[in-house]
């Protein structure tokens, strides 16, 4: 694989007394979408949170764009170019949509052209621009969460289950937005349980099991091989 933007080598993470990540190795190629797949509870979310620094890894190395992230504070990881969309959306409910977006623009006021693009991609943001984020519906909150990560161009996005519990129409909006983001040259590492979405967006896939990455390769290869899916994840994508 040529020039990965993110390299995770032998990363181990404990949460309280539980040993969750037991030596994760994975790479995210520059400008591609890498899907992080696997059954529930295998450590996908912990992997993203460890890369972001929200959990500290006790062993292993995380390299991002030539830099060692291990000792880097969480805020600096974001400023270095990593956008994070957590599973729980992570919006600030008491602040307005505008304030949520303004907060995410670290280098100054929100760029008008980018704001227009985000409004075109997620129309409800324009409608509820001055409303408290806590009053939005689940789908609108997810749009805000992703739009906030996109408020400024980042080189890598870590996205945790962006389509979870959303209506099909909103899922289509999300897929379209993420495709546009990829077209702009961003690299994405995304946890996704919806195989149709994973197949539609992913260039590569990494499958995890029991705190380790057990397979990595082209998404198309995994999607085309039901036997491989069955072996890696205990189910077949064809059912979805």
């Amino acid at each position, binding site marked *: 694989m040529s020039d990965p933007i993110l390299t995770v080598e032998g990363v181990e993470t404990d949460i309280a007394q539980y040993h969750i990540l037991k030596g994760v190795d994975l790479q995210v190629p520059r400008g591609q979408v890498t899907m992080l797949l696997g059954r529930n509870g295998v450590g996908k979310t912990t992997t993203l949170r460890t890369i972001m620094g929200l959990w500290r890894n006790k062993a292993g190395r995380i390299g991002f764009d030539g830099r060692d992230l291990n000792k880097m504070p969480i805020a600096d990881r974001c400023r270095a170019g990593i956008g994070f969309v957590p599973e729980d959306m992570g919006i*600030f409910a008491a602040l307005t949509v505008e304030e949520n977006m303004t*907060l995410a623009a*670290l280098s100054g006021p929100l760029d008008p052209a980018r704001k227009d693009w985000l409004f075109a991609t997620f129309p409800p943001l324009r409608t509820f621009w001055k409303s408290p984020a806590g009053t939005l519906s689940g789908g609108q909150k997810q749009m805000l969460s992703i739009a906030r990560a996109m408020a400024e161009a980042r080189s890598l996005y870590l996205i945790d289950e962006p389509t979870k519990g959303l209506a099909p129409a909103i899922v289509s909006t999300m897929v379209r937005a993420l495709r546009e983001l990829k077209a702009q040259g961003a690299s994405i590492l995304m946890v996704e349980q919806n195989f149709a979405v994973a197949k539609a967006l992913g260039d590569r896939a990494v499958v995890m099991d029991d705190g380790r990455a057990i397979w990595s390769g082209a998404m198309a290869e995994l999607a085309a091989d039901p036997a491989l899916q069955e072996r890696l994840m205990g189910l077949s994508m064809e059912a979805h």
Partner: protein
Amino acid sequence: MIDWLISGDRPRSVALGAVLLGILFSLAFAPFLFPGVRALDTAATILIFIVLVASYDLLLGYSGIVSFAHTMFFGLGAYGVALASIHMGPGWDALIVGALAGALSATVLAYAIGLFSLRVRAIFFAMITLAVASAVAVLVSQLFQLTGGEDGLTYRIPRALTPANRVGELFGVRINGRILAYYLLFFSCTALFLLLLRIVNSPFGRVLQSIRENDFRSEAIGYRVVAYRTAATCLSAAMAALAGSLYAIWLRYVGPDTTLSFEIMIDVLLMVVIGGMGTMYGAVIGATIFVLAQNYLQNLMGAASDATSALPLIPDLINPDRWLLWLGVLFVLSVYFFPTGIVGRLRAGR
């Protein structure tokens, strides 16, 4: 112009706007509307507590930081003016130097506390501030030669601000230095309050609010939480110290009971909760209601007790000696009926 002054932070409720305008008008014309030493003293205390409570709300309501050291910073500002006035003489320079020295020392102390303890959990930070505040209160009592110990310090301020300075008469009220001192307080407190309003409505204020809601999320979108919390602690401490300096100018006396006591800390906490946390206007309403209740509830109960003397039980229940009990009942009721504070309630019912 007004929108610019209040940093675009409108009351967002007609009733709240009317109450705030009423308070502003009453305080602006207090010497003419409510003649008498006690009324003027009450108005001055309200002004000072508005700034003190608003500065505490910057910490508690906007940043989610629980501190018990706020009156310590208030005391530092007051002692700064007292010591400067004693050592430099009763001049304007002493007031300015004392206020600046008080604010600076409060900022430095807040920085030290913040840097060492804002990384720990909120409850430990609260405990550390309590310990530091208690230590400073004991230190002030022990350093008798410098601070006057439990007796405190009395000093002189510029003659222009004393009752001896007679200026003339306006609307039938004799204007003297005391009224000039009141207006010095009024304009200073208004400026400090508007500055606090500007701070909480700035991008810095928004980051503080995001940290209050979820510090990990704020960190994950690129903000160094400890740095922002430390900055908020320092700003809040400096504002409290300036309020303390103004209080010292007004009282011409400082002592541990008037500026450093834990009772004042509890009062400030109550004023924030009653007015509404996370709303600067809550400080205005909370301080006004609390100080008025502290000063006039006893009188009101005395009058009510006399008026109901023919009835059984009631005069005993509302005996003026029980004013603290009823003050407590009032606060319990206000927290029960207005869990988001009076401002929150008024905004919800607009």
